[in-house]
């Protein structure tokens, strides 16, 4: 005789454990006075170039490390290290399209939280999945580049609603694309009225100082709060 089927009720969100891990990690970061920025975007939006410029402006005033997350290769980690001289490690997601709080914690254990002010996590290039998983970062930021189009906040609403700052990159090519900056700001506000929007051109460096001082202010506030 086969045993009757027994049902065990669970009623638990599959994200609950990750949310809990993320909260614990944020608590640790607060204790140690380390600011973790989770930087997200599509592939090719200019995350690495933006980081190199930004780090160049901040590295004399803040102790910075970078964690590069990709499905494979270590090209970004090597580029960052060679261009800026700061510590940069590569995290592999093992084929997954995003990082979660546990993977982020392992990365932080590797760079060490003791002698740092700012850690930048360059998430996997993707506008969908990374938005769903809290990494434990203090702040979520994203880069939208002009060639991607001004309608992206409408198409990827979750990504734009979880980001406190949206950097609009590649403004030097604005004359060649049908990208309306004002319209884009309006779409971003629809998804997140509190988001700060910073137009930059990572290639020429224009506007990067605005992003760098915003970030420096954030790090100082986090340490003082």
């Amino acid at each position, binding site marked *: 005789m086969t045993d009757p089927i027994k*049902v065990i*009720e669970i*009623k*638990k*969100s*599959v994200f609950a454990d990750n949310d809990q891990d993320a909260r614990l990690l944020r608590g640790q970061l607060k204790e140690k006075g380390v600011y973790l920025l989770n930087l997200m975007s599509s592939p090719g939006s200019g995350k690495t170039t933006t980081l190199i410029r930004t780090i160049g402006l901040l590295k004399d005033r803040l102790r910075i490390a970078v964690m590069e997350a990709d499905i494979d290769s270590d090209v970004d980690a090597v580029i960052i290290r060679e261009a800026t001289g700061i510590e940069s490690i590569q995290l592999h997601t093992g*084929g997954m399209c995003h990082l979660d709080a546990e993977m982020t914690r392992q990365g932080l254990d590797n760079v060490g939280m003791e002698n740092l002010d700012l850690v930048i996590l360059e998430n996997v290039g993707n506008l*969908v999945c990374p938005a769903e998983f809290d990494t434990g970062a203090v702040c979520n930021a994203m880069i939208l580049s002009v060639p991607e189009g001004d309608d992206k906040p409408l198409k990827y*609403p979750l990504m734009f609603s979880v980001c406190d700052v949206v950097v609009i990159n590649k403004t030097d090519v604005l004359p060649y694309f049908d990208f309306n900056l004002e319209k884009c700001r309006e779409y971003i506000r629809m998804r997140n009225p509190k988001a700060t929007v910073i137009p930059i051109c990572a290639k020429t460096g224009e506007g990067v100082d605005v992003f760098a001082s915003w970030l420096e202010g954030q790090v100082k506030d986090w340490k003082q709060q």
Partner: protein
Amino acid sequence: MHELGIVFYIIRDVKQAAQEHGVEKVNAVVMNIGEVSTVVPEYLTDCWRWAADKEDLLRGAALKVNLLPAVSYCEDCGKEYPTVTHGRTCPFCGSGHTYLKTGNEVEIKEIEV
């Protein structure tokens, strides 16, 4: 798009629940998936088959999906409407001040043992 990652989370949670209840074999896992949770049920069950069969506890276990409808609420006129048809704009008064009430769930409802 990240169904495999979600399957790994489900397996972790089910293993934990099985351990707590002294269960050695799971026949089925029942999920509540919201219509706008970005999880595609077909992909989820495909990833599940691949990953679950690697675990003694879950070999051959079915993944059953309850799809929950997405409903939005309009803060301006107080009405509810189906999110998938109308998106963020209220079909009754045209307001954009709306929020999702249900439809974002990715939840393990129960396991059959």
